[in-house]
């Protein structure tokens, strides 16, 4: 599978603000809504890495329209790429001021400095170093403030309305998913046993969260293929199963063994080369499960979901067809 990151052929920017404070901690602000995928953690890690502060030193305010800049929707697998780059740009702006003050104090050029682990050090001479706290005291003495604002809009073009040509996405994620199923041909039950899902994420920002997203995507896709269906009343169009006791999704006991694999490629324009994995995690498992069922039964399914009754019907049909062939 290959899948574009960000909105299709449309501008979709996001922004971030940052300030490094006198006590060598930072305030980071961005609009991206964390809906459980962990963008708050990811952006904090990106800012900490960019500023050379430890993770705990970065405080985050996100998704508050009174104070945070717009982050656009948490959709299209886009926040790591787009808000991530905005955070990086904001931090780079703040760091430019910091580096100037540090270089003057240490007697070198700003580009010779490395910011890491709450310390500023000359790259080729570790003895030329200062703590972030000393740096912030120097900033105060110089009457300077370490603030930054950044926004990022992926490079795309509007698609040609006639032939859809153009550049719809700046970055693509790639994935391969393999799964093993057991199909009961008499009851139509499908047991998803094992799933291996490998994703080119460019650069992993947070391993546990990226793996968690892949695992969550696998289970969501499993539900899409095998269980989920919105039942609509023919009488008045209302949804007949609007509660989770009737709208069936996989339970913990249905979850297969999942082996997520993170592939780090050359990346591209994302922060440190990172791409998105939100939707890519979900998509390839869907055809993988269907293909596994088809491989087990030697029949084809052309619509989702594939319910046990559909499997039993397909098996019966095939048996009848095979019998006719032999006669």
């Amino acid at each position: 599978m290959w899948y574009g990151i960000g909105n299709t052929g449309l501008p979709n920017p996001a922004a971030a603000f940052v300030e490094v404070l006198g006590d060598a901690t930072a305030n980071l602000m961005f609009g991206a809504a964390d809906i459980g995928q962990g963008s708050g953690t990811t952006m904090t890690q990106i800012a900490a890495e960019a500023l050379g502060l430890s993770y705990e030193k970065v405080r985050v305010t996100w998704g508050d329209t009174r104070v945070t800049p717009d982050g656009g929707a948490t959709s299209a697998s886009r926040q790591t790429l787009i808000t991530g780059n905005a955070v990086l740009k904001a931090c780079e702006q703040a760091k430019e001021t910091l580096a100037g003050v540090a270089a003057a104090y240490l007697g070198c050029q700003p580009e010779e400095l490395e910011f890491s682990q709450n310390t500023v050090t000359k790259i080729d001479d570790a003895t030329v170093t200062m703590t972030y706290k000393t740096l912030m005291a120097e900033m105060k003495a110089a009457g300077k403030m370490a603030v930054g604002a950044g926004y990022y809009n992926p490079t795309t073009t509007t698609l040609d309305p006639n032939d859809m040509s153009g550049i719809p996405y700046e970055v693509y994620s790639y994935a391969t998913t393999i799964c093993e199923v057991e199909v009961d041909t008499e009851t139509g039950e499908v047991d998803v046993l094992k799933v291996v899902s490998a994703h080119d994420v460019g650069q992993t920002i947070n391993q546990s969260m990226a793996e968690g997203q892949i695992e969550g995507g696998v289970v969501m896709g499993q539900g899409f293929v095998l269980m989920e269906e919105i039942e609509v009343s023919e009488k008045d169009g209302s949804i007949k199963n609007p509660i989770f006791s009737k709208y069936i999704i996989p339970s913990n006991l249905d979850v297969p063994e999942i082996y997520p694999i993170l592939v780090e490629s050359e990346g591209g324009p994302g922060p440190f080369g990172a791409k998105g994995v939100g939707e890519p995690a979900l998509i390839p498992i869907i055809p993988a499960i269907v293909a596994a069922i088809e491989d087990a039964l030697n029949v084809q399914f052309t619509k989702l979901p594939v319910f046990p009754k559909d499997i039993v019907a397909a098996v019966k049909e095939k048996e009848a067809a095979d019998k006719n062939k032999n006669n």
Partner: protein
Amino acid sequence: MKAFEFFAPKTLAEAKGLLNQYGESAAILAGGTDIVIEMNEGHRKPDVVIDIKKLKDLAYVRIEGSKIHIGALTTFEMISSDPVIRERVRVLAEAASKVGSPQIRSLGTIGGNLATASVAGDGVSAMMTLNASVVLDSVRGQRQMPLAEFLDGQGVSSRNALLADEIMTEVFFEMPDNHTATAFYKLAKRKSLAISVIGAGMLVQVDGAGICIKASMRGGCLARYPLHFKAAEEHLIGNKISIDLLEETLPMLHDAVYESAKSRPWSVFYKKESVQGVYRKLFAAILEQLNGKSYE
């Protein structure tokens, strides 16, 4: 939810007194896994709720002579973890262990399951397979009856024979002996928190020569109460149990389900086909148990 008066009696006598006093306006709350939902959704609006959770004396699994007695307040968790039931009564252990989720099994009771008498009650299917009987109690005295008769009865609700002043106190059944095998399979849309599509039970008793002397096959969710596969049972009795003999009953299961469910065309195709797959699993479990027993 409509307001109601709430009582939590500490003794059975007290509970029976309250039921006698409030009758039809009262609802019994045991585990609450059915009635709380029914009340929340407005399907039931009792004036009085009698919470019997404090009647701890009604939670037990007891062996008396050749019978196993289970108190009405015994939870599915207690049943599925009881060593005697796990060893001797697989049909019940399996049914109890597949009810809902750990949370529901810790609250839901066998008495509540039988009194609610849902089409999809796995406890109902298992107990019908075991030809269980229930004990009903009231200030007027105790009575007992086969579960089948209980389910056929017209009491305070059309669901069963329970009268307005009565409380179920016990369910009991003949303990399967060394020559008896039992099994249960729950066919459902997922592996937990699922309402059964078919909840199938089976019991087979053989003599020393492996000849079937008793057979019980009941399929939940295939009729208002667990479907009785009489033709299949009769086919087994008097014959030596083998995989071939057992599989000869598959068309009978198919036909029985078709007869029972043909008025519901959207579900009959799948149910009449899948019931065969379900029973094939039970046959394997039954044969495995019987073969194991022959070495005892």
